[in-house]
């Protein structure tokens, strides 16, 4: 049973410091997985060309899967399958994910390196006796470690408590749903969100800026006169195939501050986030408690405490022969720095006994559960949740501007399932998907809403449904967009150019993708737009194009939202409209210029 990680090199070799192969391997792994994360993020765009889902990292996150299933009281086999590998790996090797894979952890490592953050409260080598004496009582640092477990407990309680109602369309009944606050603290969701809301617009602005400046330079008369305008550089000038309009997200600043805060905490302690706050780390650490593998310290240890100093997460107690198993991220830095080569990864009963375990404070556990229960107050911040009827939870009374992407779950379920990773907003081709600010109340902060003035939901795009990791947006087809009503447009006749000032316009009718706008002819012969609310799906094209500034005279509101109906029912309604139209409805009357042509 006794195995040595670096047996090939041999602990008794003459080398004073053996090449830390495990550490090198870990660094390569970290960079590869970070690169993979960035690549998948970049490829979450039209067209989706990969055989693997672009939201792989989010899907593989066991905490998100747990939350999406527990809080919605449903089993999603897909989520289970994707979360399985990391769960199994964690059962075997504890928090190896945190040390080797997690892109958030790698980002923190990189930032620590770049900004030279080593932590101001890092343990200093202490006399051996003092260290041994101290190890009996938990230090302040050890107490901080436990915070993440309390947070995890609080999060799980919020998933369990029935905080809202959801009409289960599959089962045809109303059931309770928990509340998921996991988005606040899950590292993968947090990092993806930061990438979408902050990194993406920044990169695109940089691209545009260089395009404009370099392009202007290229096109200067000097360059022209001297025939320096070559095809390659000219590419930058017209913006051919380049980013013309950078994406923008409303809550970018908030995401930046949160992310910056997480990074800045490393000034205090290295990997402060990972060791004290990350609930995913806590979950994986708990899974790893049954791991057969442990780090063992041999008799060669001379208590130099280098390992204690080197440990990124403070997992080693002041007595280097002991460490806290659920804290260790398997980075193997301790193996690399030990001048005695006294540390090895072993499997077996004997080594397992060295695990320090975790002693949670009972009062704090209760307090965490209390905090989780208190979180039930959050969804009551919107009017919809305060209405007690079954339909109220699907009709969003909080805001008429709460327009969800097509395929979204009913509102309370949607808010619960959505982890605010921003993947849908990243993939969205028109930038119309924006983080909700006030549309859905406090509980919907950061969830995707369609903001037509920014862009319309493109008729032939289905990306958001394909990239949602928790199925808050269920996948849908282009054909289904025809009857997945997300809202209804209405014309504000007091500001509409045609209605209010009697001038020709009808840009909304021009642009409507679903032929839902028809014309009323005024006495003086001016065409005035009318929305056929039976055909309008609320894509927002009309609002986007309306020349009336700043709001647009035709605006989409959430009244047409039909998420409370099953998809088949929505289709039936749409088909009914088609049949009525065929029969000859008031909307295809003699006023239509070409009605008699058919």
């Amino acid at each position, binding site marked *: 049973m006794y195995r040595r990680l670096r047996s090939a090199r041999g602990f008794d070799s003459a080398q004073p410091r053996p090449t830390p192969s495990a550490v090198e391997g870990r660094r390569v792994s970290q960079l590869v997985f970070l690169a993979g994360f960035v690549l998948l993020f970049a490829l979450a765009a*039209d067209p989706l060309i990969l055989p693997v889902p672009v939201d792989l990292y989010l899907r593989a996150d066991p905490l998100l899967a747990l939350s999406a299933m527990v809080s919605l009281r449903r089993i999603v086999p897909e989520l289970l399958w994707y979360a399985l590998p990391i769960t199994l790996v964690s059962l075997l090797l504890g928090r190896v994910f945190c040390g080797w894979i997690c892109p958030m952890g790698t980002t923190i490592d990189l930032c620590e390196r770049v900004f030279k953050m080593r932590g101001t409260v890092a343990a200093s080598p202490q006399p051996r006796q003092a260290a041994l004496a101290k190890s009996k009582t938990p230090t302040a640092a050890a107490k901080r470690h436990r915070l993440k477990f309390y947070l995890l407990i609080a999060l799980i309680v919020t998933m369990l408590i029935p905080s809202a109602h959801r009409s289960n369309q599959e089962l045809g009944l109303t059931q309770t749903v928990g509340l998921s606050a996991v988005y606040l603290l899950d590292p993968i969701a947090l990092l993806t969100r930061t990438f979408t809301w902050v990194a993406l617009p920044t990169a695109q602005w940089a691209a*545009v800026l260089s395009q*404009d400046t370099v392009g202007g330079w290229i*096109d200067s008369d000097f360059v022209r006169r001297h025939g320096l305008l070559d*095809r390659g550089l*000219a*590419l930058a000038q*017209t*913006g*051919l*195939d380049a980013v*013309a*309009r950078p994406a923008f997200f409303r809550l970018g600043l908030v995401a930046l501050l949160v992310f910056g805060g997480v990074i800045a905490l490393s000034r205090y302690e290295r990997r402060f986030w990972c060791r004290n706050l990350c609930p995913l780390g806590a979950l994986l650490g708990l899974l790893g408690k049954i791991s057969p593998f442990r780090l063992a310290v041999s008799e060669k240890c001379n208590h130099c405490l280098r390992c204690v100093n080197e440990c990124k997460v403070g997992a080693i107690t002041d007595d280097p022969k002991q460490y806290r198993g659920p804290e260790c991220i398997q980075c193997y830095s301790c193996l690399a720095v030990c001048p005695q080569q006294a540390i090895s990864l072993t499997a077996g009963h004997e080594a397992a006994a060295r695990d320090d375990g975790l002693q949670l404070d009972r009062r704090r556990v209760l307090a965490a559960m209390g905090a989780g229960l208190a979180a039930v107050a959050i969804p009551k911040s919107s009017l919809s949740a305060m209405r007690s009827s079954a339909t109220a939870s699907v009709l969003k009374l909080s805001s008429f501007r709460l327009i969800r992407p097509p395929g979204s779950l009913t509102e309370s379920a949607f808010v619960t399932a959505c982890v605010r990773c921003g993947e849908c907003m990243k993939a969205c*081709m*028109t930038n119309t998907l924006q983080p909700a600010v006030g549309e859905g109340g406090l509980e919907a902060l950061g969830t995707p809403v369609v903001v037509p003035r920014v*862009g*319309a939901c*493109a*008729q*032939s*795009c289905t990306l958001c449904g394909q990239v949602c990791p928790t199925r808050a947006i269920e996948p849908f087809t282009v054909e289904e967009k025809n009857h997945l009503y997300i809202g209804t447009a209405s014309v504000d006749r007091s500001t509409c*150019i045609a209605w209010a000032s009697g*001038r*020709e*316009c*009808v*840009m909304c*009718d*021009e*642009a*409507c*993708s679903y*032929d839902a706008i028809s*014309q009323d*002819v*005024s006495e*003086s*012969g*001016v*065409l005035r737009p009318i929305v056929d609310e039976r055909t309008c799906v609320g894509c927002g*094209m009309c609002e*986007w*194009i*309306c*020349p*009336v*500034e700043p709001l647009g005279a035709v605006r989409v509101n959430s009244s047409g939202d039909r998420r409370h109906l099953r998809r088949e029912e929505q289709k039936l309604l749409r088909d009914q409209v088609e049949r009525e139209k065929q029969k000859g409805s008031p909307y295809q009357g003699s*006023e*239509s*210029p*070409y*009605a*008699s*042509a*058919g």
Partner: protein
Amino acid sequence: MADRFTRREFLKRAAIGVATAGLATELSGLDPEALEGSAEAASGPTIAVASKKDPAGLVRAAVEAVGGMRSFVKKGDTVLVKPNMGWARRPEQAATTNPEVVAEIVRLCRQAGAREVKVVDHAVDRPDSLLLRMTGIADAAKKAGARVAMASSPALYEKVSLRRGKALTSAEVMRDLLRADVFINVPIAKVHNSTVLTLGIKNLLGIIWDRGAFHRSTSLDQAMVDLATQIRPHLTILDAVRILLTNGPKGPGRTDDRKIVVAGTDMVAVDAYGASIFGMKASQIGHVRLAGASGLGESDLRRIQIRHV
């Protein structure tokens, strides 16, 4: 004002016109051939009307009949081709210019020695990448040797004052167009819910940044004419290979295969003929009538010399 149609009356006539323009052209009395004067009598501008060929052949024949591409494009010129690729529709839905037509124009320009051919539009619809793909124009034009782009950033536009403008005094026009040596306007012939038809003059709305300003102005028709007075294409090639008869400009609607391409230097004349394809008179199309009246071009079919090829 006496000769002006009321809207209702116009719509009725238009409906009749389109209904009859299809298969029963000869019986309708609105036959394009019947409307035009004989080539000898006409003293106005010349346009070429090519018919009954494949799209590329139509373009070649029409351009050849107005003097050939070499009379417009000189060696080393930069050419800007402005098709309609403003809607997320497939070519067969006839809401956007036929990609083969655009590609053939690009090829002719390259053959004439153009240093660079840019195919650019400012789309109404979004997203650009999807439009470029769906319309088929990006692929076809790139293969033919053009650079294809959507000019979707205000940084790519320059303010131009419309000196003789009545409804608008200025507009932001694509910088690429202002700097091009040759500007070729390639509209598709469609019905349009606001301007009745969309032809050459209307297609120019895709070269400006703030389309909304035109709609907010006192008169959309006049604003379009104001722009056309300042920005004049060297060549207008109207794609009527397949025209959109209902629910224009975006469709989807009823389409009709006409297999016609019209070319000419006088954009108004091309539009006047374009109207006849729908069984209408130029005077029924507000902006074409205004353009003719303001001397921008010839809107009276009887005075236009038409070469059928």
